């Protein structure tokens, strides 16, 4: 029954995974370019963002066509609404990667205030959470969707570590404050990515159970 519809749904899920992978590459690339102060690489990250946007629009368009032509109900309808939402979340994560790239460009010749240690770890953890969240969504795996938001605490802890370290370094020197601020922005962007991973997990649970609820990580 409804074979062509099933195929359309599968294609949409595939496209979502591709978009997720692209954003993951973008995030890792943005942090690596920042760590190595590679301006050319940061410019490439900004270019990738256009690809991310157009993939998101394409998914939106396909979802609307599917809704209009197949008139889905119940779980199918929730799934399609969730795909729309998640495509939007992924695009915003891409914007965070672009934000990190812009910071690197804005820094110009300035050296990093301190070599990056915790931020690349944050980036790796964020990307791993993101990857698992997207896969959990396409597999409609609510156990995984319930577990992933608890990992957000690790990201928050790393962010706090970055923050405390930077605060210990800055004095009254305006220049130093600015250089610390750049690094803090990058960490902040990653922290936001992790929060949005939780939103994806919420959509997975909604798709499967029909229940819309906010998942809170344990520290909240």
């Amino acid at each position: 029954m409804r074979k062509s519809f099933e195929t359309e749904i599968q294609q949409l899920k595939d496209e979502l995974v591709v978009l997720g992978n692209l954003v993951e590459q973008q995030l890792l690339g943005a942090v690596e370019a920042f760590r190595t102060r590679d301006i050319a690489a940061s410019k490439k990250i900004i270019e990738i963002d256009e690809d991310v946007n157009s993939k998101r629009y394409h998914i939106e368009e396909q979802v609307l066509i599917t809704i209009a032509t197949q008139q889905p109900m119940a779980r199918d309808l929730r799934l399609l609404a969730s795909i729309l939402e998640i495509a939007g979340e992924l695009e915003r994560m891409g914007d965070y990667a672009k934000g990190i790239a812009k910071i690197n460009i804005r820094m110009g010749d300035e050296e990093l205030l301190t070599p990056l240690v915790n931020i690349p770890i944050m980036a790796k953890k964020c990307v791993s959470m993101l990857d698992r969240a997207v896969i959990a969504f396409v597999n409609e795996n609510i156990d995984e969707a319930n577990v992933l938001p608890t990992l957000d605490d690790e990201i928050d802890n790393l962010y706090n570590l970055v923050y405390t370290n930077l605060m210990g370094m800055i004095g009254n020197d305006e220049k130093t404050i600015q250089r610390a601020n750049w690094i803090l922005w990058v960490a902040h962007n990653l922290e936001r990515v992790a929060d949005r991973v939780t939103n994806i997990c919420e959509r997975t649970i909604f798709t499967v159970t029909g229940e819309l609820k906010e998942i809170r990580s344990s520290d909240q």
Partner: protein
Amino acid sequence: MNLISPVLETHNLNIYYGDFRAVTDVNIQIPRHKITAIIGPSGCGKSTLLRAFNRMNELVPNTHIEGEIIFEGQNLYGRDIDPVEVRYRIGMVFQKPNPFPKSIYENVAWAARIHGYRGNLDELVESSLTKAALWDEVKDILKQSALSLSGGQQQRLCIARAIAVQPEVILMDEPASALDPIATLKIEELMQSLKKDYTIVIVTHNMQQAARASDYTSMMMLAENTRSGTVIEFEETNTLFTRPKDKRTEDYVTGRFG
């Protein structure tokens, strides 16, 4: 769901054609001044249930029910209840528009006249046609044959005819399935304006129509291992089409049934 004052209420309703039990153990309440849709696959007893609500099934020989249907606190199948009276208070609109081969005016006036209506017939015809959203289209051709109208107009005329005897409930059996999409939308809009004054129960094969036009939806399906239909889920329409509780409802509304 437990309503404070439902218009119609069934208690362990079973409907038989001879020995064959077509509908099994239905317990539902029809909310007042709302539109309730009955959906489900072919042959699951939707029309049979609908027709039980105004004792229309009795026109088929050897039909009987077990259990009861309570209408405004009274047993609809009680000994002292006149089925003809029931059909005035609970009107029916059918799938195929079936106006009488008479003038537009007479189609509306006739039943009221038979029923002993003592008011001004012209006013009744105008108000009924207005409520049925047909007045503007026919006010200058009231003497013309009803059969000269389009299918959609004929169906609205049948609704006007049902309204003319001032019923409390209007039953509709696939009222738009013979109509084009524009005429269908007109009927659906009409239903929305009618529910201020009447309670509407509609049987439809068109799930989108149930989703668009009704407040409550009753999902029917054959009871397990039988050829007899029953209500498996009764919910607010918004809930039933987005978060159905029963797996069989889910399968049906998502097109994975069967």
